[in-house]
């Protein structure tokens, strides 16, 4: 391979420069923009990218489409705020319990259905998420239909209760960086290859010695843990969760769309998708007020149609296509 390293070396260096520049821009821009509305959107983009990247592990890389990931998000959000309601804990201290519950539920939904082919897993995830929402609505101890709140006034830094959106932006961004580093490391090794093989042709993958069931379940567990952590961070920022905002099916759909728009099964797809979707949603909400929520659904519907019709691989596919065209012209 020594012959190949000579022409790719400048390109690899270029990629490093580009990466460092992008990272610097991501770190610096909120400090340069004074508008809190925009900084807040930035924090929400990171939060959305976090949940969509977590979904991407099982839905993108392994190709097992979960439409009930809000279940894990809700576990994290509720664990945080119930920890405060019951024991006056700082919300983030509830996160490990949210993760533990999520792992347990992931095992329950994944063990039987990931054995099966087809849409059983997708259907089971929707069913369990909706079941959880209905149980919470009807259980006063879990806040019922009203929801649960966090501390009204911050008691210490541990409460992660800040007036400025900036700390949230950097906290969410750091967790996202950890998740993306893990995803990158995973995608280059055996697990990444095995998950993509399972997504491509599960029967063929198994005949090559890929223990498909075990790998799919492991991907689901990691994904559920990070989604749950996202829920806990969300609860710490918003200080409130109810069955709709913590367990509503629209949240599951948002994770799928953000990942699919940017490119499911790619490292930065969910981040790119979130960077487009979240500002769009916040601006329609701001422009149309409460009545604008309906517009959001219409936009999502349109995005689903456009992606599946023109670019099933999301924007990443268009990007690869453009680059291939560019190289052909340049060469």
């Amino acid at each position, binding site marked *: 391979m020594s012959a190949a390293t000579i022409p790719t070396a400048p390109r690899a260096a270029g990629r490093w420069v580009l990466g460092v520049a992008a990272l610097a821009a991501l770190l610096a821009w909120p400090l340069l923009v004074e508008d809190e509305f925009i900084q807040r959107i930035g924090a929400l983009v990171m939060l959305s990218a976090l949940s969509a990247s977590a979904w991407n592990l099982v839905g993108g890389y392994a190709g097992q489409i979960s439409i009930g990931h809000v279940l894990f998000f809700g576990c994290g959000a509720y664990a945080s705020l119930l920890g405060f309601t019951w024991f006056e804990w700082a919300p983030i201290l509830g996160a490990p319990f949210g993760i533990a519950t999520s792992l347990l539920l992931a095992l329950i939904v994944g063990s039987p259905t990931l054995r099966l082919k087809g849409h059983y897993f997708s259907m089971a995830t929707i069913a369990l998420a909706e079941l959880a929402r209905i149980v919470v609505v009807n259980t006063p101890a879990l806040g019922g239909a009203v929801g649960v709140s966090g501390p009204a006034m911050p008691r210490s830094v541990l409460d992660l209760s800040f007036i400025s959106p900036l700390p949230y932006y950097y906290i969410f961004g750091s967790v996202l960086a950890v998740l993306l580093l893990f995803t990158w490391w995973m995608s280059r090794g055996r697990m990444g290859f095995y998950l993509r093989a399972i997504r*491509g042709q599960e029967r063929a993958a198994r005949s*090559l*010695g890929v223990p498909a069931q075990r790998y799919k379940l492991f991907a689901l567990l990691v994904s559920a843990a990070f989604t749950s952590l996202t829920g806990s961070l969300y609860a710490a920022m918003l200080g409130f969760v109810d069955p709709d905002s913590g367990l509503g099916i629209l949240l599951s759909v948002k994770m799928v769309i953000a990942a699919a728009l940017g490119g499911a099964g790619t490292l930065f797809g969910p981040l790119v998708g979130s960077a487009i979707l979240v500002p769009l949603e916040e601006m329609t909400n701001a422009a149309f007020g409460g009545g604008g929520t309906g517009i959001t659904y219409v936009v999502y519907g349109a995005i689903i149609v456009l992606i599946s019709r023109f670019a099933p691989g999301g924007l990443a596919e268009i990007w690869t296509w453009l680059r291939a065209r560019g190289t052909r012209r340049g060469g």
Partner: protein
Amino acid sequence: MADDAPLLEARDIVVAFGSFRAVDGASLAIRKGEIIGLIGPNGAGKSTFFNCLAGERQPASGSIMLRGRDVTRASPEDHALLGLARSWQVPAVFDDMSVHENVMVGAFLRHPHAAEAAAAADQVIDFTGLRPVARARSGSLGTPARKRLEIARALATEPEILLLDEALAGLTPTEVRAAIDLVRQIHARGITLVIVEHVMEVILSLAHRAVVFNQGKVIAQGAPRDVVQDPGVIEAYLGRSLSRKPPA
């Protein structure tokens, strides 16, 4: 395990779809170093039997031993671990991955680290002549290259025994000759082969032993040239009208 014990042995395999017995008490013992050709008319049960040998399907009754272990109910991945690899009748390559990445999936079975798997995949790619398309997306390949990739990917698992399911069907005569060469080289590496094939030329020129299926049973086996002249085989497989002029 004694030296003369079969590498892979199926005993009294029965597979039923409802009341229809696709495989009806078939047995076969394969010794190390053999090239076995499984032949028979369409619907004879050879593909179903093949899938039992590969661990893809579990028989209703009967037993299968691989390298002295009972694998009748073992998963396909356990078969791979024990040294059995297969190709698919309809190529099942991973379209979104490059040829090299496809082969790496196989290589990861014995080489858990990416760098070692990549190096092992490189060797297999050179051996199977896929070097010119190694970086191509496998979804962009034509049928001959896909079939070759299937074999390469299976070889990357470093099997003792390789099962080829119509790996040469749909190829032009030139491509068939190239594929026969490849199979010979694979055999020269000490890999035992089981081949399901419709192309008679392939069985006649490659197989040490032809095993003829009809109606779910093994009706004859032996040297390919003897088997194709067996009256029962001619009647079942080649049709009665050919019995007066045996094939070349």
